[in-house]
């Protein structure tokens, strides 16, 4: 193999490598972002469905544990950069706090219910960019979420 053939081979390989890197980086970035975003969304949906079922059937302690896990997980998702969030979780978080308020209310724990509703009002107020919703509107948000989850499960 002559020197000129070696040089041509070297530059051809180098060019191939550079073009491959240039093509691979945006593809890898887009796929990773989509994957992590779907991962967050799937966890949130799964937990919302589980919480809604526990809310319907379980006692206050187990329903509370489920909603607290949902709140904890949604708060983690909220800390992720926006590109990894399919949708900002504030509205789902507001619904989860409202659900917690309803659980505490039915368990006769009025101060804890008020704290949860207050948090839900503040979060939903951020989403709507207006006046904070009433407790009845928050209950409607929970009922709406349950209806959607039942439809998804059907």
């Amino acid at each position: 193999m002559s020197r000129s053939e070696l040089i041509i081979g070297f530059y051809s390989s180098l060019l191939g490598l550079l073009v491959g890197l240039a093509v691979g980086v945006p593809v890898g970035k887009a796929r990773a972002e989509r994957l992590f975003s779907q991962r967050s969304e799937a966890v949130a949906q799964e937990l919302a469905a589980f919480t809604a079922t526990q809310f319907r059937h379980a006692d206050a302690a187990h329903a509370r544990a489920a909603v607290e896990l949902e709140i904890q997980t949604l708060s983690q998702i909220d800390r992720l950069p926006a590109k990894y969030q399919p949708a900002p979780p504030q509205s789902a978080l507001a619904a989860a706090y409202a659900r917690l308020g309803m659980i505490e209310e039915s368990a006769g724990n009025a101060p804890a219910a008020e704290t949860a509703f207050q948090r839900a009002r503040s979060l939903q107020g951020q989403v709507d960019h207006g006046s904070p919703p009433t407790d009845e509107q928050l209950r409607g948000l929970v009922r709406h979420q349950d209806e959607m989850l039942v439809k998804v499960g059907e």
Partner: protein
Amino acid sequence: MRFPSLSRGVHVALLFVCHFFLGAIVAVWATYQYEQSHWLASLSREQGRQLLSLRETLLVSQTLRPATTGAVQRELSQLRTLRRGALPEAQPILDMRLATAHATLASLYQNANDPVAAAAEREAARSTLRGIGWKTVSEATLDELATRRQASAGVKQPR
């Protein structure tokens, strides 16, 4: 040794293509690793581990198979194994899946005219659901769980 002109061209093209694929694969892998570290860095180490672990557990337990007795029994066995190694937070969700599998099995045994096995599976489902705080578990609720599981088996789950 000198290559003839055509062979030399093919040789150069092959070198280009091989290195193109090598570069593309390395770039996709490295970008994925970078994005993953960025994703994890935005959470604390423990939170990231918990979120990933929760997702993996839920993903594995979601692989629903068509409702045949053998398939549901394998699913039950897989769920029990998964539950043993799962985070405590994920265990009630897996219990719900276990109860759903028992309810499905009960419905299959009922259709196969085996009321004794169906009753045993229904009792297993009830006992699992009571363990996650269910106050009452009616026949209708168990049927609803079985129907939902069978409907979901045909639906592609998000990864």
